[in-house]
């Protein structure tokens, strides 16, 4: 029995309830028209349309839409320019990929041959060696042997050891500072403070009459990375 037109799902503004045959058909109509339903649903919709006038009207209305959309002339985007652009992009990519492959080729070849076992053994030996070296280094560190920092404390500070007050240019690296201090035989005993002042002792000049300290100051002042060099207490 056919429902009155205003009661028909096609006239409602809420999404159909697919539990009823009308609603099922109405929901499936776009895909029925596109022939994109499975065979069973195609049959079910087709049979319903044969005896339901309201659904037939909905079908006819949408068929006009589908036909009109499908008969629209083709859009005139020309493919050739786009194709050339993509092919160039692909060529660049493949060149990059080939470059990486060449770089990784020795490793890849190694992986694919019997030398893999040998390579693994070499790797293992290297790792063991590294572990031993690290172990030795750590042991030496804990005993404090031969490990120096820029600010190593002077072990036994003789009272007559001259000390220098130094300020380095901010651009100087720690390596450059160490090289400068090595040249004058200096050891940092304090600093850098908030103003960047280092206190450096000159153990080798202990007991001297100050000439060596003066010479060190003169030499340091002549270095471009040294902003201040003076003898403490002078």
């Amino acid at each position: 029995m056919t429902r009155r037109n205003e009661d028909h799902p096609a006239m409602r503004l809420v999404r159909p309830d697919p539990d009823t045959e009308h609603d099922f058909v109405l929901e499936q109509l776009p895909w029925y028209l596109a022939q994109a339903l499975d065979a069973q649903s195609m049959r079910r919709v087709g049979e319903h349309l044969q005896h339901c006038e309201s659904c037939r009207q909905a079908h006819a209305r949408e068929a006009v839409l589908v036909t009109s959309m499908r008969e629209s002339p083709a859009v005139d985007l020309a493919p050739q320019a786009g194709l050339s652009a993509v092919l160039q992009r692909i060529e660049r990519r493949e060149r990059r990929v080939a470059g990486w492959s060449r770089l990784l080729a020795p490793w890849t070849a190694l992986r694919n041959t019997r030398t893999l076992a040998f390579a693994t053994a070499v790797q293992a030996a290297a790792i063991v060696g590294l572990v031993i070296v690290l172990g030795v280094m750590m042991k030496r560190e804990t005993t404090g042997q031969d490990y120096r920092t820029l600010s190593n404390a002077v072990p036994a500070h003789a009272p007559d050891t001259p000390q220098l007050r130094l300020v380095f240019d901010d651009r100087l690296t720690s390596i450059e500072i160490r090289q400068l201090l090595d040249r004058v035989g200096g050891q940092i005993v304090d600093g850098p403070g908030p103003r960047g002042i280092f206190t450096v002792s000159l153990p080798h000049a202990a007991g001297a009459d100050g000439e060596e300290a003066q010479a060190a100051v003169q030499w340091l002042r002549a270095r471009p990375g040294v902003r201040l060099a003076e003898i403490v207490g002078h």
Partner: protein
Amino acid sequence: MVATVKQETRTPEPTPPRPAEREERLLLERIAAKDVAAFRALYLVYHKRMSRFLLRFVRHHELAEEVINDTMYVVWCKAQEFRGESQVSTWVLGIAYRKALKLVRKGARSPLVYTAVDPDSAALQDDAGAGQRELRESIDRALGALPPLQRIVIELAYFMGHSCEEIAVITDSPVNTVKTRMFHARERLRGLLEDARP
């Protein structure tokens, strides 16, 4: 009395593969093996298909071209990852959809430049042709007035013939979301087309 039929829950029979599907899969296999000739062939097939789909979506020629080229570049790079779980067209259009959606969300909008009708076409010179042209123009305007996500569901189903499940894969949405979008799109189209009637 209203006949109520419970919707069957068993798995529907699969949609038969489109005739071109097998050929497209072969092309994709060759592309995975870095065959440039196969890529050219697939590009030309999909350029035509995607042009219209993307123009409907991004509504600008240059943007549509950009998305086509980006999509096909991804096809070249990822061809080996295609597992054949969906149709080739579903896979390719899914890539295009995601790229176009990014542009749409970025707000890359401009007036609709899509023109489906050539006014000089001989077929449209008589009265029937003129009527047809008016209808197409009304439909174009109505489609242009739809939100992009609804418009694209209409385009994928009505014009490209994709099933609801395929559209769900392409748009990375649940099947029910596709049905809801389709329902609202149809309602709005009907209203817009009725309003456009003289």
